[in-house]
């Protein structure tokens, strides 16, 4: 009997317990809270994210890093299989970069009442304009005024004309200048600027000059006021100085250069292009020894490492099989081995004094500014670029390291500032091209689109630009996902720009 009662009691109690558990769902919210995720992070942590999304290489691997350099004819890739980008195959771009925008909003929101807020606002404006600039340069018209309205329920933003996008970008950069001007040193900056708002302001303005220069074909469009904006920024005087340093990232053994430690599987097959090598040779430019290794064949023939003749570039437009055959003969100069062996071969330099000065030189020639002279701008830019290369490990320079004496005597022969503006512009463009090797290579492609110089090799037989074998593709396609999620707006943009056909040879407004 006793046992039976006990059992009954246990059953009753258990039923009661279960029943009680129903009515108490109080802890459900706690159960469903992830302790490893944050709801209210500091603005500095969001800032680090925003800056890294902007200046860091965010591609998948070394091969992806090389891809942009293949497209811009810096290198050729032999022996494994043909890489489409080397042969002008361009496909869809991606709007994924725009997911940066809510992060910027949150960074600014979370810094409400924080003395660093203006600096964060500056970062936000800079990052936003950087992102939009790259997208519109690739595709043409893109969503801008209605972008980032997802939280307001607009999932199908209309596309703005490229002209309007550029006005927006330039206005944002102007705002950035104002915010940095009133900003204080801020936390969460992974770049060498370490939160210095003045350095950021200068870099932001230097970037604005770069954006404006890429609009050189639209210099007379009133709505943009390209020349006026350019002159205003230069007059403001808040530009990079030789000792400001670059906007970018320093690599370390933990945060390694993308080509480092890749086990020579991909990277050992990278041949430097004749386009780059021949130009460097003509300039008698020792950067040759830093970007390439001598050709094995030439070395075997007895040429010394320090002899420029030992460096042979590949015509990256030749047939892939032929290139591979020559590669196996050791005919070509490989990519300098420091990229493979060193974790910190060279920093990532996205905005530099060197490029700013070269842009100023071009602007001076174009008459956008009247201060300074083009030669000084040109020489200061090149010197800065040489100095940056000098700062990398000299042991990889094949016995011909860059030193100050070399820099001081650089401007002779082909490197000396030329007499005609036409030649001067080509000199400037060439120096910008050299500068962006293994850096912002995609930008060199945009510059090629604008200037046509240096002249990229073209071979209609190997050209993968199917619809125009005699030319280079001029744009990236709209994201494939847009046909699924925002077709009507994309179609409207295609209709007004490209007769409704999303195609790589169509000419976008900025280069018309």
């Amino acid at each position, binding site marked *: 009997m006793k046992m039976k009662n006990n*059992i009954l009691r246990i*059953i009753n109690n*258990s*039923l009661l317990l*279960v*029943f009680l*558990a129903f009515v108490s*769902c109080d802890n459900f919210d706690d*159960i*469903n809270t*992830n*302790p*490893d*995720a*944050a*709801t209210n*992070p*500091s603005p500095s942590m*969001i800032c*680090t*994210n925003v800056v*890294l999304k902007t200046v860091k290489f965010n591609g998948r691997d070394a091969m992806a890093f090389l891809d942009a350099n293949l497209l811009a004819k810096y290198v050729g890739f032999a*022996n*494994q299989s043909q890489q489409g980008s080397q042969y002008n195959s361009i*496909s869809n771009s991606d*709007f994924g970069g725009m*997911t940066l925008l809510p*992060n910027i909003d949150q960074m600014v929101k979370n810094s409400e009442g924080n003395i660093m807020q203006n600096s964060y606002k500056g970062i936000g404006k800079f990052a936003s304009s950087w992102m939009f600039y790259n997208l519109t340069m690739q595709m043409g018209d*893109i969503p801008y005024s*209605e*972008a980032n*309205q*997802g939280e307001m329920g607009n*999932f199908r*933003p209309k596309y703005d004309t490229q002209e309007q996008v550029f006005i927006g970008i330039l206005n944002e950069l102007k705002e950035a200048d104002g915010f940095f001007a009133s900003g204080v040193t801020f936390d969460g900056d992974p770049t060498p600027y370490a939160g210095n708002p003045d350095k950021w302001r200068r870099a932001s303005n230097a970037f604005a000059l770069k954006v404006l220069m890429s609009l050189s074909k639209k210099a007379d469009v009133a709505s943009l006021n390209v020349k006026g904006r350019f002159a205003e920024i230069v007059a403001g005087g808040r530009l990079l100085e030789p000792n400001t340093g670059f906007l970018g990232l320093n690599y370390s053994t*933990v*945060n390694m250069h993308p080509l480092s*430690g890749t*086990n020579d599987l991909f990277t*050992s097959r990278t041949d430097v292009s004749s386009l780059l090598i021949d130009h460097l040779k003509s300039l008698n430019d020792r950067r040759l020894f830093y970007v390439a290794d001598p050709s*094995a*064949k030439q070395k*075997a023939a007895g040429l010394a490492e320090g002899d420029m003749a030992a460096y042979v570039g590949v015509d990256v437009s030749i*047939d892939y*099989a032929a290139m*591979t*055959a020559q590669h*196996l*003969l050791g005919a070509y100069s490989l990519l300098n081995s420091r990229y493979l062996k060193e974790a910190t071969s060279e920093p990532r330099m996205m905005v530099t004094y060197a490029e700013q000065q070269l842009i100023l030189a071009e602007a001076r020639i174009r008459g956008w500014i009247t201060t300074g002279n083009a030669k000084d701008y040109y020489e200061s830019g090149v010197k800065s670029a040489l100095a940056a290369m000098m700062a990398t490990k000299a042991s990889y320079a094949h016995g011909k390291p860059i030193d100050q004496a070399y820099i001081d005597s650089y401007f002779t022969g082909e490197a000396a500032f030329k007499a005609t503006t036409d030649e001067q512009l080509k000199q400037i463009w060439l120096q910008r091209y050299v500068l962006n090797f293994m850096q912002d290579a995609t930008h060199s492609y945009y510059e090629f689109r604008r200037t046509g110089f240096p002249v990229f090799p073209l071979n209609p037989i*190997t*050209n993968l630009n199917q619809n125009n074998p005699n030319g280079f593709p001029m744009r990236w*396609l709209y994201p494939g*996902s*847009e*046909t699924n999620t*925002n077709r009507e707006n*994309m179609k409207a943009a*295609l209709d007004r720009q490209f007769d*409704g056909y*999303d195609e790589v040879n169509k000419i976008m407004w900025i280069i018309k």
Partner: protein
Amino acid sequence: MERKIKPRILRRAWLKLSFIALMALLTPHLFAQITVNVQNKPIKEILKSIEAKSDYRFFYNEGLKGLDKISSLRVSNVGIDAAMTALLQNSEVAYKNEGNNLVALVAKEAEKRGPLRRVSGNVSDSKGVPIIGATVMVKDSKVGTITNYDGDFSLDAEANETLVVSYIGYVSKELKINGQSRLNVKLEENVKALSEVVVTALGIKREQKALGYAVQAVEGDLLQTVKGVDMATSLTGKVAGLMVKNSSEFVAEPTLTLRGETPILVIDGVPFKNMSLRDVPSDDIENISVLKGGTASALYGEDGDRGAIMVTTKKGTKNKGLSVSINSGTMFTAGYLAIPELQATYGRVITTATNTYVRSGDGSWGAPMEGQEVIQWDPISKTMKSMPYLPIGKDNFANFLEQGYILNNNINVVQQGENGSLRASATWVQNKGQYPNSKFDKLTYSIGGEIKFNKLALSSSLTYNKNTTPNKGFSGYTGYDPMYGLLIWSAADWNILDSKDYWLIPNEVQNNSYTAGNNNPWFDRYERTHSMDKDILNGVLELNYDIRKWLKAKLRGGYETYSNRQEIKVSKGSFQGAGSATLIPNGTEVWGESQKGSYNLGISRGYSANSEAMLFASQKVSDFNFEGMVGGSLRYYQDEGIETRTRGGLSIPAFYSLKASIDPVQVASNIYRKQTNSFFGRIAVDWKDMLFLEATFRNDWTSTLSAAERSYFYPSVSGSFLLSEILPKQDWLSFWKIRSSWVTSKKTAGIYSINNVYTITNAAWGTLSTANYPTSIRGNDIFPESTSTIEVGSAINMFKNKVSIDVAYFSKDMFDFIRSASVSSASGFSSNYLNIDEIRTRKGIEVALDVTPVKTKDWQLDLNVNWTTSKTVFTQLDSLYSGDRPWIKEGMRTDYYLIRDYLKDQQGNIIHNASGLPLFSSYDSNYGYSDPKYIWGLGVNLRYKNWQLGVSVDGRVGGLAQTITEMYMWRSGSHPNSLVPERYLDATVPGSKNYLGEGVKVVSGTVTYDTYGNITSDNRVFAPNDVKTTYKSYIETYHKGTAWGGSPSPVDLYDATFFKIREVSLTYNLPHLLTKKLAMKDVSVSAIAQNVFLWAKQFKYSDIDGGSENFSDPSQRYIGFNVKVGF
């Protein structure tokens, strides 16, 4: 003689152990004589007192009158007869001592009947095994008894009366006494008949005929002859609607889908979260019943939404006493059903400048191996030297593979007592895989028992599982499977047998023909390892109490906990890291720092607890039988993991420890928790055992939804009708039933998925961490997903149950999907997390056919066939979120397979570019569907006397799958079909191009497309392609595709049709006379084989059984033997 002694020793040891265990569990004292003193209590209570103080047990019909009569008993050390006589005098109850401490109570009115005579007999099953506890009643009276341990009974009855003998699971039998004094009764088992009792949701036992939905049962002994690593493999093709995909990868578990979705696994009534069928040894399985479709969910909630696999483990036995059985299976690899091959004509590319072959692992697109002198790596002298270039490694793969085997041994001991049982079982499975250093051990120990005490029944079981492997290896292309370096990117120009000494500098540099990409395979297996050590402990405790005759209570608790330690060690000097391998669930892919070496450690643990309380009631009212149940459950689980890895390499080579990290170690952790409270109920009614109706409901409260949405309700209704009961009796028709059901289910959001939180990345750059805002909008009020399923079916048995057919049709609407619906990233977000307004419908037909064409005393042939087809289609589209694509339309299938096809002219010729290479479209197109058209299974069982032959065959028809292995075999130049004459010319005349692709080229004109990829204008003029290219370039373009994502080229998308002879077994059961002499109950010996034969339509070099193909390990044929001994 030894054979006899061993079991005895064993038996004695177990007897002792079980006795101790029983003593610990059962408190009653065991006395031979009776001493009781109870005053003024109902006779029933006094009987219980006797039971409590002696080992006598009373059996009586619950309705027996007179037991409530108040009486008294005071006896001391008397025998049972004395006690009973004293107790029952002046009552309406008589007693009968059945022997063996069993006492039956019957009404005294029996004595009032006509002249009675003693009738005795024996009840046994068809095999002659006595049935204990069978009820023997005199028809239309309340007189009856129960059979004893030998199946014997005796009672008093009139000479012309009829006895009714019944026992659960058997067909009841009526026997006229006709004046006989001894009656032997054989009861037929109800195995095939639809009055079979099956276990349904929450462990409710129901008769097949009462079910309004499809259930198929598999008896445990079907799974106990051919024992592989996983019992699930033996389920393949045995159940209509159940698709089992058996991967050939080492240690990979088979995946099960039921009606296209993953079913829940329920073990002894508890839906364990972390257990899989792997953790249940086949020898511990009593039976498996497969509840198809959402009907299971009606009572299991969201986890059972996709059907349930209900495993009932063995508890006691029918026969009282101790029994020991041993079941040992051994199988060895005997050849391969599918294995990749490597061409041995061409070797590596040779660097002409130095006459040295490239050592970076580029495949075999090089020179023909014709004995020419080439400077090569000599693994014996460990130097580069000039040697004749020959295909010395053409058998590398075969030489690398090792003899595989599976050992599966089980011993189990059962002590069945009159009021309970105890069972202990130990299983050891060892699997040696195809590759060196691949061994997997699985140990299972389980103990369980039942105790019946009056109206109380308690059952409990506890199982401990340990799974260990020193190296489960790395699989797939992105894991750098051994095939990556051994078959694909390798050439046949080096001999693996010369490379067994794999160090050049111990622990730092490999002795390897390659310097990048391809590890020395021996090095790869021993110095790049992924170990696992996993423990799982789970237990069930179930308490049943009969409160009243019509009211029963059940309490059940299930608990499981697991821990898993995994290590990945990558030696310094390895050319590959760990690839996409992970160390904890939801962990990050390791990849690792290959050449520097790395050590990675992941520890995961977790538990789940599931408790239920239920009340069952049943009542008969004239022709109606009512049953009802209400209950509640609490389900909670927690999974957590911590993963950590060295960075910057190992400070000391081969020092595998976090202490070896050069840079600070990287650490990450995760934790997932979820609780669901539920209230549920069921009501069932049947009329005249002919019409059955059942309704269920369930309400859940779940932690993963917001307070406003976390409570939700869903009902189901089902019914069945026995047509054969109203039709005129036909000789050929034994049974015909129709059934139908409607069931709804709900499914909640994922853990944390409604939270709008930032992702934190530690030390993203230098010491700085980042916070990233979600790319999915989470502001919406998410409510549960819903399904609504309608099922109709019919079961028909003909020709005395020799033919039975079961057909089911179901249609499941799925709606209110919780989706991260893609949106334009220009909105700032890549997706919007919400309930979308799309409806998908899954429809299917399942047919199960059982035929016994031959059944004689000596011969019996059983055939069973299962056939299933199903597909999912869009029924309604969400205008915003379903997607704007030509293949997303109402009525079209949802499992479309998208590719970018070759560009073709109007005649279907491939268009080539100026270099003579095939062109691909820039737009996706739908190439077919990934699900099979139908799946089928066939089982054949032939018995002749003591011999039994079993063969099972199964297959899938239709469905597309990418062949990653063959795609890479082509791309790397190693495919045996790539030996075309043009290749030889390419290779021997450097720089020449000799291959002409079949198709056309564009001479002039252009084509334009709209945003859907439709041609809007086209004035192209074509001519036959006349541009030669190299064979390598052509093949690389033609077989475009990667293992990293994206769609393959059409030629690497294969039809996955195949069939397999899954299992063959030939069993000989030793005659009982012989086994008796050996002091054994039964002995059987079998020759067994698993994975016997494969035919595939397109997959020739790899086994597609696993459902997808990515460097599938060679598919092994297993042949061996099995011995079962019972004592």
